Structure formats: structure tokens, C-alpha cells
């Protein structure tokens, strides 16, 4: 299965537009990063015990490429990045398969050889990877590293799976809200912009006694030859006629 992971190809198939938005949100939203960091810290403190410190990180897939986005500490971040650099490893396989994956003892592991060897040199002995089910909105995996072999008990695994599921459903909600608020902000900006442009088009139609398409092409030409945004050209037109420099759209939110 791990062989299917291409070593970080720059070109992938063009991603679906919706999928892209969501992945961008996961990676770029400050709220989501904070949430994922809290998740990693919580996972690490919940599972760590005396003599068995658990490092935890979250990797998100973007354009088929994995990216470490949050971690409980620098060690976890480094381990995530190491794996993403190799382009293969247990966490990426878990992400790919959508199922929890446990490597109880790195010394006995034969898969992902280059990564496993390097991780062992960094003092890792067991790894637990739990994917976050984001219902196709994005793909993310919670990675847990222990310095002990058999560092994760059956109980630990159940506990992590339970709160990974809870975290995933909260995350789905955060993603939806962020997405909607972005669309809403864009629409508000579009309403303002369209109001100004429509007014300017009307003014040009009246002045030049031309139709709407002609008025638009006059504006568009002015915008592209001067390399000024259409909206700014429109605002200049209105100001030159009426002296008004603040036009606001009339609609309630």
C-alpha cells in the first residue's frame, strides 16, 4: 500500500474546486490551526504517563501532498515532517487507508524501511496513527509517537479513536463555518463593488447615449490600459460626475 505513495510529485490531477477550498481552509485558517494544536496537546497529555512521553502531531493532505500543520511539541513536528519528507510512513498509510494503524515496535517493522530507520534513530519505538474522518472535506491524520515499544495499550487506542472522532466532527463544523463566512465576506465585497460599477455604467450610458455592453467595454478598456481595477475606474467616473466618493450598497445583512 505504501508504494502507492508517490514521492512528492509536483504535478497531481487537478483537484476538485470544492475540495481545494476546504483544504486551503484547514491549512490557512488560524482557528483551525489552533484547534489542531489543542488536539495534539490534548492527545499527548492524555496518553503520556511516567516514563512514556507521547509526542503528537497532525498532518493534513493538500493537493495530495502531506503537510504537518500542528504538533504538541517540536519533536512531534520534526517527526511528522520527516515522514512527509520521505513521502511514506505509517501515518501517511493510515491517512491513505482511512483506518487506525499501530506500529508496536519499530525494530520489528519491515514496511516503510527508510522512514522507520530514521525515526528509530530519533528515539521512536512505537507509532499510532489515527485518521480524522472529515467526510471528504479534507484529509487529516493524528500521529502519536512513543519512545517505548508497545507504547500504546488497547485502551489507549480506543481512547484516541474516540476523541479523534469527536474532534473530527467539531472540525467539520469549523470548516463549514469558515467556508461560509468566507463566501459571505466575498459576497458583501461583490455587492459593494457591483453597486459602484452599475452606477458608473448607467452614467456612461447616459453621457454617451450607448447601450450597456458598450458602456461596460469603455470601462473595461480604461481599466486594462491604465492597469487600474474596474471598480476603481468606476468610482472615478462617479466622483467626476457627482463629487461623491463614497458609494455604499443598499442592502441589509
Amino acid at each position, binding site marked *: 500500500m505504501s508504494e502507492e505513495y508517490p514521492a512528492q510529485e509536483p504535478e497531481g490531477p487537478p483537484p476538485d474546486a470544492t475540495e481545494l477550498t476546504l483544504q486551503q481552509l484547514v491549512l490557512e485558517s488560524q482557528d483551525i490551526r489552533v484547534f489542531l494544536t489543542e488536539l495534539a496537546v490534548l492527545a499527548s497529555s492524555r496518553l503520556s504517563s511516567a516514563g512514556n512521553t507521547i509526542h503528537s502531531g497532525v498532518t493534513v493532505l493538500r493537493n495530495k501532498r502531506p503537510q504537518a500543520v500542528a504538533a504538541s511539541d517540536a519533536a512531534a513536528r520534526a517527526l511528522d515532517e520527516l515522514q512527509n519528507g520521505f513521502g511514506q510512513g505509517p501515518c501517511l498509510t493510515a491517512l491513505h487507508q482511512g483506518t487506525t494503524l499501530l506500529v508496536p515496535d519499530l525494530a520489528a517493522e519491515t514496511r516503510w524501511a527508510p522512514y522507520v530507520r530514521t525515526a528509530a534513530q530519533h528515539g521512536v519505538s512505537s507509532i499510532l496513527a489515527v485518521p480524522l474522518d472529515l467526510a471528504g472535506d479534507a484529509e487529516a491524520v493524528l500521529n502519536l509517537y512513543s519512545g517505548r515499544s508497545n507504547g500504546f495499550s488497547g485502551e489507549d487506542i480506543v481512547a484516541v479513536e474516540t476523541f479523534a472522532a469527536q474532534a473530527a466532527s467539531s472540525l467539520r463544523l469549523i470548516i463549514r463555518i469558515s467556508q461560509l463566512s468566507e463566501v459571505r465576506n466575498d459576497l458583501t465585497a461583490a455587492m459593494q463593488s457591483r453597486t459602484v460599477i452599475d452606477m458608473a455604467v448607467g452614467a456612461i450610458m447616459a453621457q454617451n447615449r450607448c447601450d450597456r455592453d458598450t458602456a461596460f*467595454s469603455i470601462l*473595461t478598456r480604461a481599466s486594462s490600459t491604465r492597469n487600474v481595477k474596474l471598480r476603481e475606474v468606476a468610482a472615478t467616473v462617479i466622483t467626476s460626475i457627482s463629487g461623491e466618493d463614497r458609494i455604499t450598497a443598499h442592502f441589509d445583512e
Partner: protein
Amino acid sequence: MNADWTGGPDSLLEADEQRRAVAKRFQDSEVPLIKLWTYYYGLGGDADEISLDAYLNEALHLPAAQVGLISTAMRELFAGGEE
């Protein structure tokens, strides 16, 4: 809003070419469709999101004025967002 495309075969060919270039530029940009449509709408565009989608998949022709606005929307949006 299927175009009132009244030009002869030559201009239709030209429109095909132009459309292909616009579609390619859109795909390369990786900008989500809703983002482009909202911006284009903000410039005074009249086509709905589905027609824009069809245009960008080379399945529909739009009137020249709309094509001009789509190009302008792309130029402004890809140049660095809406300030």
C-alpha cells in the same frame, strides 16, 4: 444565458480559442469557482455560477461582454486579491 452568438464560423472559432485560453488560465490558477464567480458578479457580471462553470469547461459560449468581464475578473483576482 446561452449566447446570442451571431458571428460567422470564423468568429466562432476565435471564441473557441479564447474560451480555451480562459479555461486553461482558470485551471492553472487553482482558484475555486465560487471565488471567481463572486468576483465576476461584483464586476457586474450577469451569468450565473452554473453558466460560468459550463463556460470554463468549454461547454457553453457566453456573450462577448460577459467574456470580457470574466477575463477582467481573472486578471484582478489573480493579480493579488480584492485588497
